[in-house]
């Protein structure tokens, strides 16, 4: 067996193989051994659960999860979701949460990466400090911020009172109107370092010579950024934004630990809502139907994610 390299070779091989894929698969049976462990784990922990979720979404299953006693109900679980008022409230929250968290995390992270791109004394230390929130556990982060937002002894409330901007410490996470923005601040605190790392890595691939050439030609800082740096970072930006959007859409820990979705559902997002439906109220059917809807949304996002990634691949092949 020879070691195969190069996309042209691969394409040629694939074309000739189309007629008898099975024979090819047999010839390459040794190659599959390398990916088999990864695929096996994935199948057990992903494919099986997806199948199971879809099945459960068409049944009513008793609270104790006695699978033998489940009753087929068709699309009832789905109509129950779409006609409930909570659904629209939670969807609205999720939208605000995802868009605001993703936008600010990306902008702050990108700006931090740019500001840290030029070397100066203490740059390494500063970068390390900015990354820490991303590394520590979301549970720890939630408790730290819960304490900061505390309605009696929280430091932000105390500062506001000290400065004379408030009569008494405001209720950040116990009030319907401020709870979601307050949690988004915590989420951005945890997420922007990821964007910073990705964009830092991206910035290092921008060719120095191009920037210098642009400078010689009289381009100012903004023009150099907009016409040289930014086009180089388009792929990284797309991947980063998609990963952030997916991660934010899938957040659970921060709202769950800090508020549990309250007060009166004001900070419930899809994932916390699904969790509560399943493990809190044990409405397995409705929770599974929710999961299937979520699944469809994510597959759509996933389509763009794969397209962004394979955009990278194609460029790699042509270069």
């Amino acid at each position: 067996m020879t070691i195969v390299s190069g996309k042209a070779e691969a394409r040629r091989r694939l074309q000739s193989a189309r007629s008898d894929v099975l024979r090819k698969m047999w010839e390459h049976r040794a190659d599959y051994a390398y990916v088999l462990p990864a695929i096996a784990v994935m199948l057990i922990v992903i494919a099986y659960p997806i199948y199971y979720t879809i099945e459960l979404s068409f049944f009513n299953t008793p609270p104790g999860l006695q699978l033998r006693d489940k009753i087929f109900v068709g699309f009832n679980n789905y109509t129950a979701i779409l006609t409930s008022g909570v659904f629209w409230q939670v969807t609205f929250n999720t939208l605000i949460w995802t868009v605001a968290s993703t936008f600010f995390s990306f902008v702050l992270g990108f700006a931090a990466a740019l500001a840290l791109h030029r070397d100066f004394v203490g740059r390494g230390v500063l970068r390390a400090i900015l990354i820490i929130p991303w590394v520590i556990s979301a549970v720890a982060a939630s408790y730290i911020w819960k304490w900061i937002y505390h309605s009696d002894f929280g430091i932000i409330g105390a500062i506001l009172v000290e400065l004379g901007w408030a009569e008494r410490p405001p209720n950040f996470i116990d009030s319907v109107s401020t709870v979601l923005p307050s949690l988004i601040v915590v989420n951005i605190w945890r997420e922007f370092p990821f964007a910073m790392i990705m964009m830092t890595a991206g910035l290092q691939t921008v060719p120095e010579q191009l920037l210098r050439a642009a400078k010689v030609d009289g381009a100012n800082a903004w023009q150099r950024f907009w016409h040289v740096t930014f086009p180089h970072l388009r792929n990284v930006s797309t991947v980063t934004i998609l990963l952030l959007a997916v991660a934010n859409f899938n957040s659970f820990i921060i709202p769950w630990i800090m508020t549990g979705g309250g007060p009166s559902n004001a900070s419930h997002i899809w994932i916390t809502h699904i969790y509560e439906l399943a493990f809190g109220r044990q409405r397995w059917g409705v929770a599974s139907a929710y999961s299937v809807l979520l699944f469809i949304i994510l597959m759509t996002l996933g389509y763009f994610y794969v397209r962004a990634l394979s955009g990278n691949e194609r460029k790699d092949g042509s270069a």
Partner: protein
Amino acid sequence: MSTVSETISRGQSARRMRVDGWRWGGRVFLVFMLLYTALPMIWMLLTSIKSGFAAMQFPPQWWPDQPTLDSYQKLLDPQNSVGQDFLRFFWNSLIVSTATTILSVIVAVPAAYAFSRFTFPGRNFLFFAVLLRNMFPAVIFLVPLFILMRAIGLVNTHGSLVLTYLTFGLPLAIWLLKGFYDNIPVQLEQAARIDGATRFQAFMLIVMPLSTPGIIATAIYSFIGAWNEYIYAYTFLSKNEQLTLPVGIQRFFSENTTDFPGLMAASFMMSVPVVVLFLLLQRYFVRALTEGAVKH
């Protein structure tokens, strides 16, 4: 010296003005980000060295009047029940995270290598199928996995966690490592093969050492992910002696709702291992991203 530079800067001041504006903007921004990032962590540390009484005051003691390490002593003392629990949770987290990390590397390295080097039917499909795992939240898999774990008798074992944690570390691990292998010239291996090495030898002696930064980055990522994971641990484990730190701390807090110094001390100690690990090895992580994932 200064007069010379002043003359120069005065001469070019018109051109420099704009650039300096950007630079100052960057500095102000970095100071803001530093405060945003660091103040919550500083407040955590300051609270953790207060007594319970000192923490619950209004206006707060900006700097603790009588700093005390009581909270840390309590958590680290194997003699009392709080300390026993905390140390046990810590140990559990360490075991689960280490097992996950080792297994991730063992599973991800060959897979990434195959995705990078071999062309077999379904390669692209399988690669993107693996990456797609990143898209889905834990909650989707929670109910069926709970049923699955119950069926194979893994509920209330650390094995259930290691198995699940493996899958969310794998996609990024494989992606990062594949980028690394893509950048290692095939000719190196071919040369080794001509010199009589088997394919496995060429892999172990040539490719593995060159991809060490990628493997380290992968390992850090898996370890941190497993260390911080909460939902599965919260759902799969119910026995107190098996809990990992995030769940253990939550349980601790629900029993001692006003012990904020203790909670902050516990949060701090839970963060120390991953922060230290990451700071020591972060250059590998950024390098792996640069050379592996982003360089296209």
